[in-house]
């Protein structure tokens, strides 16, 4: 088991390294002087020269990458000229809202999607099943910001139930914090619900065709127990896998949702950085998000051992 974890950890290193190479190359392949781009539009010659020296831009590109990677491994993502702070500190400041939004979204999505998927598989081909499949295609198709505005219009503006925009820190109290996050989390969870419900339905449906389900029913187990303990438990691996893969969708959604609901998180930071052409911040945020994505999927891989005792690494 520990050997497996070690092996999987080692296996993620090349992936992360290639992500680093790609993020590094992104800037180098942009026409223009990288130092001038990194320094921002308002920089003077002296600042540009300082950045050029620190990046080693007069040296071969492999050496430049080495310097950049060295800084990266030391936890230095450079300095944002727009916010005038270290990018690492900036990401730290913006982490709480995004983490809160993502966690709440995943919670809502799993709590809603898994029972829906199981119910659809249980009544396969019935009206509920068809309705859920229809909803799932719709969920993939309605853009998250259109959905956001529809919800704001109905829930906030017409019914006045929840705030239109804004964010309260957890330190300001749990209820105001939750109150401001509910609508963004519901918005963001729709596409995720569509994805998870679909896969849950498919994998529970497959499990329901197995012999042990017939046995469980034959020995007179209550249907709920058959569905949860036997069907769902055996369908767990694909469901957890899709939750992991869905993190990429979630990250994309966070960028849009935070922008619509004015939540000062990493997604909002990404958009602001792009609008200001603040490249050190763009690079930092992309690296951070990709790192989280790879890490979550590593954890998903490891969870298989607990979800399915047949899997031994």
């Amino acid at each position, binding site marked *: 088991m520990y050997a497996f974890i070690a092996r999987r950890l080692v296996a993620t290193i*090349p*992936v*992360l*390294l*290639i*992500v680093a*190479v*790609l*993020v590094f190359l*992104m*800037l180098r392949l*942009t026409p223009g002087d990288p130092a001038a*781009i990194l320094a921002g539009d308002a920089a003077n010659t002296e600042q540009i020269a300082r950045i050029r020296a620190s990046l080693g831009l007069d040296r071969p590109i492999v050496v430049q990458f080495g310097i950049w990677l060295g800084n990266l491994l030391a936890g230095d993502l450079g300095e944002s000229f727009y916010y005038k702070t270290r990018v690492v500190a900036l990401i730290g400041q913006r982490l709480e809202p995004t983490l809160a939004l993502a966690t709440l979204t995943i919670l809502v999505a799993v709590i809603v999607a898994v029972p829906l998927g199981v119910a659809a598989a249980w009544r396969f081909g019935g009206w509920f099943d068809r309705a859920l*499949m229809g909803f799932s*295609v*719709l969920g*993939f*198709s*309605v*853009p*998250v*910001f*259109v959905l956001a*505005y*529809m919800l*704001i*219009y109905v829930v906030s*503006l017409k019914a006045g139930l929840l705030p239109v925009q804004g964010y309260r820190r957890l330190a300001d109290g749990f209820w105001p914090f939750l109150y401001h996050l509910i609508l963004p989390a519901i918005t963001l969870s729709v596409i995720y619900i569509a994805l998870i419900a*679909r*896969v849950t*339905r*498919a*994998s529970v*449906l497959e499990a329901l065709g197995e012999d042990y389900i017939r046995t469980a029913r034959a020995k007179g187990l209550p249907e709920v127990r058959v569905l949860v303990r036997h069907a769902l438990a055996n369908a767990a691996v694909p469901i957890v896998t899709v939750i992991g893969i869905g993190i*990429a*969708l979630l*990250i*994309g959604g966070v*960028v*849009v949702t935070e*922008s619509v609901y004015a939540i000062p998180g990493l997604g909002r930071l*990404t*958009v602001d950085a*792009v*609008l200001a*052409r603040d*490249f050190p911040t*763009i690079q930092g*945020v*992309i690296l951070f*998000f*990709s790192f989280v*994505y*790879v890490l979550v999927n590593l954890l998903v891989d490891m969870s298989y051992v607990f979800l399915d005792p047949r899997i031994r690494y």
Partner: protein
Amino acid sequence: MDAPGRKQYEALSVEAAVVVRQESAWQRVRRNWSVRTGGIVLCVLVILALVAPWLGTVDPTLFDAGSRDLLPGRTGEITTLDGEVVRHTFWMGSDSLGRDIYSRVIYGTRVSLVVGILCALLALAIGIACGLASGYLRWLDGILMRFMDGLMAIPAILIAIALVAMWRGSLATVIVAIAIPEIPRVTRLVRSLVLTIREEPYVEAAISLGTPTWKILFGHILPNCIAPLVVQGTFICAFAILVEAILSFLGVGLPPDIPTWGNVMAEGRQQFNDYPHNIFFPGVFLAVTVLAVNILGDGLRDTLDPKMAKKMGSE
């Protein structure tokens, strides 16, 4: 005489079976409810895009300070490029610069469809090249696939946003930027198909006959990848239309004067409380378009690619 006769019969029956299967696949596609619905809606959208100038629209970049923030259905004035003032009914209202939302939305169909189709074609073309190379040239496989793994580890929208930010928004850069994150998925698909197909007897036969590698790849292997690639292409198209709208909406995509659904919505954000139609109309068009492409893709997958359909649980 028995053996050759039998062989001939077998050959005939195999040929007949192939003919029957091809016909029924095409018929299955045409009979499929999803393919029909999605296809019809898309056809209507394509026609809308083509005949946009004759649908009672005005130039979507025209604005008139006297016709700002009109509610849907109101009539106002608009100044043409010649300086002529004409009466115009704003069926979907006007924005804060006095531009006609209806014209912008109808013309926006063009941008969305072009971006969707070109992104899909570009991602497929590059993905097919990489996938064939990776599946057939074993020495290249390791490096290329590790590279693709790395590319897939970066969320698609982030790549698109970052690339457009660096290259500045234009139609070409937006299309390339959205297509790039889709390439690894196509590459993986083609590679896995190649690895299966290259073990088939007819490929082995072609190799032993001394057929050149390029001919095996494009003449024998690629034609057998078409069905799953068509399915994948429609989903890329739907995703590309969504991402283009997101980029425009966030203000990092095409320049704001170009009429795209995302740009119309971005413009309408500030006064959403009072004039929700700025977001509502382009939003509905966007959602219907993406929905149509997705439904078409689902139908194609169910009829052309049964293995994938089972995995996604739609059969």
